[in-house]
């Protein structure tokens, strides 16, 4: 178990044990705040642990013109499993610290194709796997000291640190002769990538929440950019006597700029049950890599999603949320239907 994992589990241990000790008088009020009343950032002394599980079916892609292509028709539907982990702490009433990461497992299939005709056919398939922890995000959120309850305004900043191994492992391509007489064979490309991005990324954002007694409107805008060029490796391969040989080439890249936007309407049906609907998306640009020795830009990508969900205040400390996320438009990107179940564990570590 790595040092980071040990620290992580130690935090979880502390968090669970804190609950047993009980809280100050007003902590009950703070922790059972209705969704629409809740500020964007944590209260002073509030410690929140968020996690969950997101299952996605990558079943469509959008081409350069934004045209939707159904991946089910070519048999290349893929799955993604994601477990996010987030720890938030309100160090002051206007200042929150955040640490987050996530573990994911993705298997992307390319459309199979055959080369040759009757008798001698090469059957080609491709699987690209992404597995592992995402980069560690450390962030802070500053709440504007507006005392007028309907408005809550937050400025946030943070950094993604590439602490986990991000370089792809050696591929596991295989070549199998199916019919030695005619020369038919099966060729399987299997790439083993990491989920971690591997680049230091800075982030700056703002969020605004407008609160009424039954409804809240939230909007946020986040700008992120690669702070410095990162390194990774590209595995070159070739087939020699039916066995694959590999060579590792180092290259540099920069993830470029990403703009995320999010808007949400929440309706407080009853004090412990909230229905939410959100529209979110992102656009990325200006990234590049020099795998071939030339600096080639990444193609611009964008994706917009609609989501519908709810949150239940299960207990003073525990909240449960579930969301369905559907892609509505995009460019140059694969898109997914996602089903997210999240839990949020909250305690007030000390009272004001």
């Amino acid at each position, binding site marked *: 178990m790595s040092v980071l994992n040990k620290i992580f589990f130690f935090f979880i241990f502390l968090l669970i044990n804190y609950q047993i000790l009980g809280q100050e008088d007003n902590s009950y*009020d703070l922790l059972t705040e209705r969704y629409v009343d809740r*500020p964007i950032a944590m*209260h*002073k002394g509030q410690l929140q642990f968020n996690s969950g599980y997101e299952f996605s079916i990558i079943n469509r892609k959008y081409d*350069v013109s934004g045209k939707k292509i159904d991946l089910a028709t070519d048999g290349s539907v893929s799955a993604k499993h994601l477990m996010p982990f987030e720890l938030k702490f309100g160090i*002051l*009433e*206007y200042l929150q610290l955040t640490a987050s990461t996530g573990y994911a497992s993705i298997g992307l299939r390319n459309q199979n194709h055959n*080369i*040759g*005709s009757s008798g*001698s056919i*090469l059957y*080609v398939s491709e699987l690209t796997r992404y597995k592992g922890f995402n980069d560690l995000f450390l962030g802070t959120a*500053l709440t504007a*000291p*507006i*005392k007028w*309850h309907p408005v809550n305004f937050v*400025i946030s*900043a943070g950094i993604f640190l590439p602490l986990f191994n991000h370089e792809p492992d050696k591929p596991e*391509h295989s*070549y199998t002769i199916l019919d030695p007489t*005619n*020369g*038919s*064979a099966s*060729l399987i*490309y299997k790439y083993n990538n990491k989920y971690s991005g591997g680049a230091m990324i*800075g982030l*700056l954002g703002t969020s605004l929440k407008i609160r009424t007694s039954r409804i809240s409107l939230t909007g946020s805008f986040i*700008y992120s*950019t690669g702070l410095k060029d990162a390194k990774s490796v590209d595995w*070159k*391969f*070739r*087939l*020699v*006597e039916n066995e*694959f*040989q590999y*060579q590792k080439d180092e290259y540099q890249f920069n993830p470029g*700029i990403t703009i995320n936007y999010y808007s949400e309407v929440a309706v407080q049906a009853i004090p412990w049950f909230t229905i939410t609907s959100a529209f979110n998306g992102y656009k990325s640009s*200006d990234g*590049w890599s020099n*795998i*071939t*020795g*030339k*600096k*080639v*830009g*990444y*193609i611009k990508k964008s994706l917009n999603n609609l989501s519908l969900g709810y949150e239940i205040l299960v207990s003073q400390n525990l909240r449960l949320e579930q969301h369905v996320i559907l892609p509505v438009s995009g460019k140059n990107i694969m898109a997914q239907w996602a089903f997210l179940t999240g839990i949020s564990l909250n305690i007030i570590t000390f009272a*004001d």
Partner: protein
Amino acid sequence: MALPYYKLKNLKYLYTLVFLLIILFSCEEDPDIINPEEVNTWKYYNTSNGLTDNMIYSIKQDKSGNIWVGTDRGGINMFDGSKWINYTVYDGLLSNRVYAIDQDADGTMWFGTSAGINLLIDQEMYYIDKIGDLPIVPISLFNDSKKRMWIGTEGQGIFMYDENGFNYALLDKTEYWYINYITEDLKNNVWFATFGGALYFDGIAFSVFDETHGLNHNYVTYILEDSWGDIWFSSFEAEYLTRYNGTDVELISLFNGKPISGVSSMVQDLNRNIWFTTGGAGIVKYNGAEMLTIKIHDGLKDNWVLCSTLDKDGNLWFGTLEGGINVYITK
């Protein structure tokens, strides 16, 4: 319930911090970054936009980045990045049929024409129509790492020009007198693709690599050393390509098992793909494991491709029989 909002006394520090972060995150566009939308696209040059002929025998980029093109009946066309400049018999060329082009260490351009050699020195055209008393038809030229210019001819064998003048390689078999292509490997052996197999010169003597050594066919059209250090031999007659690692030979099928069409040239791109140009079957791209055929319906203007080269920007230039030059933008 009244929430315990904290009084921020020094708001100006917060705004200063935000301002500094905005400056930190702002960045300028890098002019060196290649637009990804231009990658994996075709560009075409033919008689409608600057070439004097659509049949292309040779393409070569010089040290300044200019692209030189030898044509069947249109002489030489030079592309400086924005426009084409033409050189024909009216400019001093011995013939408008130009088989081979190379540049020597001094920057002189050498042209192998059907009537002899032309040299372009400081925009002045010179010619060598005979070496000794022998008229020559140079069909391949190569300037090696030792600054020697090798001249491969059609039936007259191999000549070499160095600081001592012209030298003639005495080769016993007449099949060795037809030199389709000349190149050099990383060990500084100079290789010659001939009708009788491949020859290589190690600095002292010529040796033969032919069917007795595992070569698929002795009629060799082209020789390429790939980025793995293996040497490929193509032929216009053979069913397979020959890959040689210095010890062992492996025969590679161009169409994943199907008989090949004749291969006229080979070129490796920056991504280590090898591109084989064929007579009538388009171009075949080899990624190390599978062969992908590229034909007219994939963007080529002619399935007969005679020559190829990789430019300094990573683009692939293909010279065709009737379709002019097809440039594939790939980085």
